[in-house]
């Protein structure tokens, strides 16, 4: 489904060059739940950003359903992110002043869906994560676990082909972590592809495939 070929990312810091990704080749098939693990700074978040078209690689290619997606225009990439990718972050990126419902609606607003339809889709997404009763609550007033469930709902709302999750439980306690991972697991069971970055071995147990990264390379999986 999504494939990267010999992906390299080099950052320049003055005269020094930092190699964040050193020739990564990876293929994720439709319906897989893949976890990328590794120590902090090994390049796993950078890889996720490349695959999510948030950042550009220095060299290499990214294929989506066998088509290169690096050469498409910025606008097309934006539409691609909107329609086909769902994102979940450790730091949530929710507007605290917006209600949970409004936050979930953001990708639908960007894709130009009408208000009534938008509201219905957001309600369904909130229901899928068990947050339908908290839709009117401002995101700032939610607990960490609830915020992450709102993020999952937002990632789901456009029915994406793949969900990219960057340490989704990084700032949650064990109870909320379990809850969030179970929700992700259920979503995976519905056929959604998930690519998750984590350093937690426990979270990685929910995945169907585990990959280990070290110094910008895949060392296992």
């Amino acid at each position, binding site marked *: 489904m999504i494939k990267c070929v010999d992906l390299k990312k080099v950052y320049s810091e003055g005269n020094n060059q930092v190699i964040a990704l050193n020739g990564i080749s990876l293929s994720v098939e439709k319906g897989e739940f893949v976890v990328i693990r590794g120590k902090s700074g090994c390049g796993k978040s950078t890889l996720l950003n490349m695959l999510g078209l*948030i*950042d550009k690689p220095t060299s290499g290619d990214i294929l989506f359903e066998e088509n290169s997606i690096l050469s498409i225009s910025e*606008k097309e990439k934006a539409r691609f*992110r909107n*329609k086909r990718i769902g994102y979940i*972050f450790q730091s949530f990126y929710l*507007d605290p002043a917006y209600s949970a419902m409004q936050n979930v609606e953001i990708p639908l607003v960007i894709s130009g869906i009408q208000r009534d339809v938008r509201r219905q889709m957001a309600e369904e997404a909130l229901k899928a994560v068990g947050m339908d009763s908290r839709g009117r609550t401002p995101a700032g007033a939610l607990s960490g676990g609830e915020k992450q469930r709102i993020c999952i709902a937002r990632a789901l709302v456009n029915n994406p082909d793949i969900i990219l999750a960057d340490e989704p439980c990084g700032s949650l306690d064990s109870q909320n972590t379990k809850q969030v991972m179970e929700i992700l697991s259920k979503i995976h069971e519905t056929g959604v592809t998930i690519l998750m970055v984590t350093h937690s071995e426990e979270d990685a147990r929910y995945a169907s495939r585990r990959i280990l990264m070290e110094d910008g390379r895949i060392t296992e999986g």
Partner: protein
Amino acid sequence: MKKSGFLIIREICHSPVIAFLRFILLAALLIMVFTMNVIAFSLPGKVDTYLHTSHLGAVDVLSLTPKEADFIENRMDLLLCGLYMDESVLFRDYFVHLGDVDEYEGCVEYCGKESGNYWGGIIAELMIEGEPFRYEDNFLHKVWVSDRIAQRYGWKAGDRINLNGWSEETGDTIIEGSVVAGVYRYMRRDMGNTPDFLLPQGTYMELMHTDSFEISVCSRKAKDIRDDIAFLKENGFDLIYSGDQLQEIDSLIGFTHAVNLICVFCWGIVVVVLSSIIRLEASRRKMWHAILMTQGMSRGEIGQLIGGTVSFTAVCAAPFAYLVSYRTTKDLFAVIDELLGNITRGGDIKSAAVSLISLGIILGMILLISVLTSLSLKKEIIRMLKPVDE
């Protein structure tokens, strides 16, 4: 989940009702500030004149058009002017000396239209007991005499004139120089009349009706004006003030100070509110960048959105910023003028102290607002410069 009190308060604060109330509060604040400024700018005599009143005489004499000069020249008999040689003009205490007018001798030193301004006429230097009268080191009293008067009395440049009892003998009018603007306005409104009274310097008045005057605000203290009036009464001048009007001056001057301070204070609040709005928006910008980027907007579209928001905010804020700086600068200069006046012209210590405290408050407010704004913005700018994916 059991809600903490803090969460409940936050929920209430984010409720639509509270949001609406906040909007109403902000709107009310803006309306109040606008109203205060409208009041300030439309007060009788205008608060604006607070700063400039003491300069009106000289400025207006020198800026008269030929037509206006002819108009005044044909109606005014003798004009006494106090001029600083360095072109700044300070008239305070002038009256004390003008009260000694019987002891003055004038030396007519210049004649004709070549005097450098449209007023023309004869400039005579006032003499006291044979010596040119000087106020401090650089102050020189002049007597401006119209051609008509010069012809009537046969004066020419260099002549010494004796003003002892001049007004009583001739029945002609003496007008103190700093009130030329007011006199001019008076004449313009009441074309046929030649002013026949002496106006306390530092004030000017407009004839609203034939028998009553509206008193404008001036940079002088009510006490000074009261002293002038008492002095004039003692010396048999035809006065225009009544006891009630004096009270009016007192309250008007007090009100003017209050309005000025309230205006500065309100604009200070507006600046703080606007800067906090900008600060809030800036703090949300990084988060919004991440949200919009990942949820399907391109960098160009985000740039347009943020650029549009910033431009809109700037366009909305610009008039406020202009008014704040305008109002504050004017009040600042007015207080400095008052302070300098009290120090250099022998004012009482209490007045000087009050001026100094006022100056301190205004400067303090400006400093506080600047520091708070720059600190908060600096913090936000640094935050904004960090990459989104950091």
